[in-house]
């Protein structure tokens, strides 16, 4: 079965993808805005953080800049949709494609190594913990803070206005809500979270790579849908918890699949396993049918 290191590694990555799932929950669920920008904003966050850390910036400051960069990317997608009336899915694909070039420009090369640099994790290794436990501890704290902030935001006047925008835009406008501004804010925050995830991922993996964003959207969706199947998202808090639970379950499932020798799977099969898991999560009976219905309808 799983070694200790593989187990902690799965939880560590799961926590990072929990942040991605928060972002996808915000765009897909709250705003009903299918946003693929995340495939570009994840490596964008990684690239910004990595380059700034190498420049000698404080790693937390660098991570903060990564969040801002992600938010800017999200805002571009949302503005393409709101101001230029480009279909939301297409707007996000345009930004995603553009970000590939932007990320290469930021890094100046396809990848940047961080192995010898001081990262947000460095001071935590002084704690009396095993090496593989340190990132898990730090990321639990980060995810917890993000969850509480998002939850409070969703319960605020502005957050409620954002939820109304996604659920019933005409009603929202009639209540005086500037729905366009809500979409820009929501998609920006969503991608800010994904940028944060990218920045943390680069620091825990020791490198930023221009291709690290491929399939982030699918993994995030897998986490979201899986989590919703396990934790019924009857309230905002439960929906957010479902994101984290789903992301960790997903990473554990992947780790088990890759470690189960009798299956004969290897690391390069990851995307195939992901696609199969997402498909199963959507079509399996007993998995919340309403969500399944929605997804198959949206994709049709």
């Amino acid at each position, binding site marked *: 079965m799983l070694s200790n290191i593989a187990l902690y590694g799965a939880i560590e990555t799961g926590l990072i993808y929990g942040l991605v799932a928060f972002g996808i929950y915000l765009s897909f669920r709250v705003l009903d805005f299918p946003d693929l920008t995340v495939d570009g904003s994840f490596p964008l966050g990684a690239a910004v953080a990595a380059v700034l850390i190498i420049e000698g910036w404080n790693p937390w400051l660098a991570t903060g800049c990564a969040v801002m960069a992600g938010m800017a990317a999200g805002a571009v997608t949302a503005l393409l949709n709101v101001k230029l009336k480009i279909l939301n899915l297409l707007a996000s694909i345009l930004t995603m494609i553009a970000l590939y070039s932007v990320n290469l420009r930021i890094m100046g090369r396809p990848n940047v190594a961080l192995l010898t640099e001081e990262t947000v994790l460095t001071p935590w290794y002084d704690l009396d913990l095993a090496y593989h436990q340190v990132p898990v501890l730090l990321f639990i704290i980060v995810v917890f803070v993000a969850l509480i902030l998002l939850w409070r*935001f969703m*319960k*605020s*006047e*502005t*957050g*409620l*206005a954002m*939820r*109304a925008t996604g*659920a*019933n835009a*005409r*009603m*929202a*406008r*009639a*209540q*005086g*809500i*500037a*729905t366009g501004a809500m979409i820009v804010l929501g998609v920006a925050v969503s991608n800010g979270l994904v940028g944060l995830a990218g920045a943390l991922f680069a620091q825990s993996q020791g490198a930023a790579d221009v291709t690290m964003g491929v399939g982030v959207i699918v993994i995030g969706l897998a986490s979201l849908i899986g989590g919703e199947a396990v934790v019924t998202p009857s309230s905002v808090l439960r929906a957010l918890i479902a994101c984290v639970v789903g992301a960790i379950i997903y990473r554990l499932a992947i780790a088990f699949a890759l470690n189960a020798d009798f299956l004969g799977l290897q690391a390069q099969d990851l995307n195939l396993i992901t696609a199969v898991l997402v498909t199963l999560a959507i079509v399996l009976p007993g998995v919340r049918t309403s969500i399944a219905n929605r997804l198959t309808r949206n994709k049709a």
Partner: protein
Amino acid sequence: MISATDLRLTFGKGTPLENPALRGMSLTVNQGEFVTVIGSNGAGKSTFLNALAGEVLVDSGQIIVDNLDVTKLPTHKRAGRVARVFQDPLAGTCEGLTIEENLALAIKRGQRRGLTSAVKRQYMEKFKDSLSSLNLGLEKRLGDKMGLLSGGQRQAVSLLMASLTPSSILLLDEHTAALDPKTAAFVLELTTKIIEEQKLTALMVTHSMKQALEVGSRTVMLHQGEVVFDIEGKDREGLEVKDLLGLFEKQRGLEVDDDSLLLG
């Protein structure tokens, strides 16, 4: 006071489907008036309401709401002055949000929304008071999702939401048309009660001539994007559907061919 002057709007301009929906529509509604609006399909009733609400912007003309020219303002910037109940009972509320969250959205209509908690404790009494006036027991179900309510219940809540904060005008767009007769009667009764109690200025579009004469203080008939007649006070008292039809034919010199007007 609301005044709409010479509103003109053509959909699909320059295409084979060009459709002039408003052709010089003018109407002034005074403070405290309850105007019912009738007209056959395509007369421009809904377009007129959408133009007042800001969902469509007119090609020319002017709309003034309480001394503010709102002609060019988008819906959300007018919302503080213009309250609205839609025809579709599901359109006025968010089914995924709870009853109290929907009311909390409405209590801030047209105001700035900040980062403080949306559902505040000090609102609760007001929410419970207004919900209990419906006699539907909803005051005990504040935390329930809106989607659990029936269409009639949701339309009643939409009406409450529209009257929770003051407005210059309340727009009702055939808001009983999609309900069964019994529920429609309940919602209509509730409408007149709220309008009378709060002395609201209201504009109600209806498909039923009978309803148009039974409620309100003034009746306006639209035809082909214009007002064809406008009656109130003594002229309106005791008027029946057949009188309205007669009036219409006299004004236009044509026969009413829309059965739904007669049957309604």
